[in-house]
């Protein structure tokens, strides 16, 4: 195409509405968050600049615990999503009757409104009447009712399991698509040479899927780090703050206690981590594209 001046104007005119929209709804609030983090903004009319005081105030032991907890929570959630998603993709890729139906059946957790799925898990975790505790008791694995959301450690894992449950369908379908993009003749050649199913998976599937695995882990990392609904509906960060991640913590301070300035400082810390993840993501995808071209 001739790249004339009119084409230039046309291209940017097509982009302008979307750019403007995102500037107002995302970029401006982002800048505003940074500005607010240096103020004592609250419900009061008067707003003063307080320098670094909000940051000095939040960097204490509790906040560092919250950061550590967020990373552990995110790490295990992403890891489980990748492992279970990969197992699911391998199983759904097998040429057995009914696999199209099975593929449809993986989608509900992803497609159903998140809050509804989470309400259902809330009932399952119920100690006296829920399914998990009930079945464990029936099979004699535990003595009495186990209220999963009432104890710090079990609530921590319960929220991870629910997060994994919501994330797995997307990961599975993405992996399945990547798996099907691998040329069939590679498998046939390996099969002719007598390679076992496991060897074919280890030597062909896994290496060729590594770009997909890396991309998905990074995207999943960012999404999981931002996870709010699950913890909020199940525990609101409790019991005694044991499931409070950085997002929940920020929400409690900013919206719950209306300390906008202090909440903004916490949000800025989240943004810094997210930017680092994003940078890593762009770097990795660029390197992967380089590998493709070579």
């Amino acid at each position, binding site marked *: 195409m001739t790249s004339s001046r009119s084409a230039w104007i046309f*291209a940017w005119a097509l982009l302008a509405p979307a750019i403007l929209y995102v500037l107002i709804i995302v970029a401006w609030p982002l800048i505003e968050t940074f500005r607010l983090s240096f103020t004592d903004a609250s419900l009061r009319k008067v707003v003063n600049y307080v320098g670094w005081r909000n940051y000095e105030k939040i960097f204490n032991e509790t906040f560092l615990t919250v950061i550590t907890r967020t990373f552990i929570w995110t790490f295990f959630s992403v890891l489980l999503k990748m492992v279970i998603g990969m197992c699911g993709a391998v199983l759904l890729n097998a040429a057995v009757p009914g696999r199209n139906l099975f593929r449809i059946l993986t989608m509900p957790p992803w497609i159903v409104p*998140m809050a509804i799925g989470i309400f259902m898990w809330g009932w399952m975790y119920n100690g006296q009447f829920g399914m998990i505790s009930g079945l464990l008791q029936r099979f004699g694995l535990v003595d009495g009712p186990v209220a999963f959301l009432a104890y710090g450690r079990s609530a921590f894992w319960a929220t991870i399991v629910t997060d994994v449950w919501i994330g797995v369908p997307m990961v599975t379908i993405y992996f399945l698509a990547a798996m099907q993009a691998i040329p069939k003749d590679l498998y046939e050649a390996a099969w002719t040479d007598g390679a076992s199913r496991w060897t074919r998976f280890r030597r062909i599937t896994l290496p060729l899927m590594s770009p997909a695995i890396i991309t998905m882990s990074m995207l999943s990392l960012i999404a999981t780090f931002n996870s709010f609904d699950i913890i909020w509906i199940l525990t609101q960060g409790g019991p005694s703050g044991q499931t409070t991640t950085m997002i929940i913590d920020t929400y409690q301070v900013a919206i719950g206690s209306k300390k906008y300035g202090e909440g903004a400082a916490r949000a800025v810390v989240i943004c810094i981590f997210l930017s680092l993840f994003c940078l890593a993501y762009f770097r990795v995808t660029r390197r992967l594209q380089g590998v493709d071209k070579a």
Partner: protein
Amino acid sequence: MARFRNDDTPMIDRYRWWEVIAIYAGIFVFLFFLLSPFIEGFLVSLKPLSQLFSTPYSFWPENGSFAAYFTMWESVPGFARYIFNSFLISSLATIIVLLLVVPAAYAFARFSFRGMGLVLGAFLAVSMFSGAVLLIPLFRLMRVLGLLNTYWAMIVPGAAFLIPAAIWLLRTYMMRIPRELNEAAYMDGASQFYTFRRVILPIARPGIIVVAIMTFIGAYSQQFIFALTFNSKTEYMPLPIGLYAYFGKQEVIWNELMAASFVGIAPALILIFFLQRYLVGGLTAGAVKQ
């Protein structure tokens, strides 16, 4: 012995009998994990409250009935309104996203002027900041614009976070449309805008439909945080927040809550059932770059 499939199956896809059993067992465990909340939720919706709140736990409903599916409408009279709200919010968000994304995706797919790569990267970066991080300024922005406690307070911010994925998906689709079409239209003296409207848009229609479906589902399933924070009017509440109405002062009416959940997700489930081919196609088109 026991080749599983008939002779048309390629040799490489044939399994021994124990492999078939292992595959089905694995699929069963996998699907059980993904579907058990729905199974349990459905059984709960059939049980009378007295059975729900009794120990020991019984998995199967005794005297199960669909009574909760009728009483739920009386306990929370506004429920139909919540479903309507959810649909309205998702539809309007989808329309906004499409109006912004269709031209933008075309620009990204067809032109490569200086700075556009950077803008594309910036759009993708948007998707990593969840609404939760930007909640404070967004709250103030909504207040300044006078949108607090209206439908728009849930639609406008929600749409912004659906844009990146939609751009990415549609751009990938539009890049497959042959460039020769543009050149031919140019030769015939068609203007840029005419080419976009009369040549590209009709061809891109299947891709636009996929993006619309994905965006609608995203909008429908992620209505929570903005609705929780930016709206306090009962009559505008979407389904996920509306369900809290079943949380009584003393106890949660669980059977009706679950019945209401199923009524609320039925439209989404019907949608997947009919559109699953588009969905898988759409996901893979955006996901796997060749």
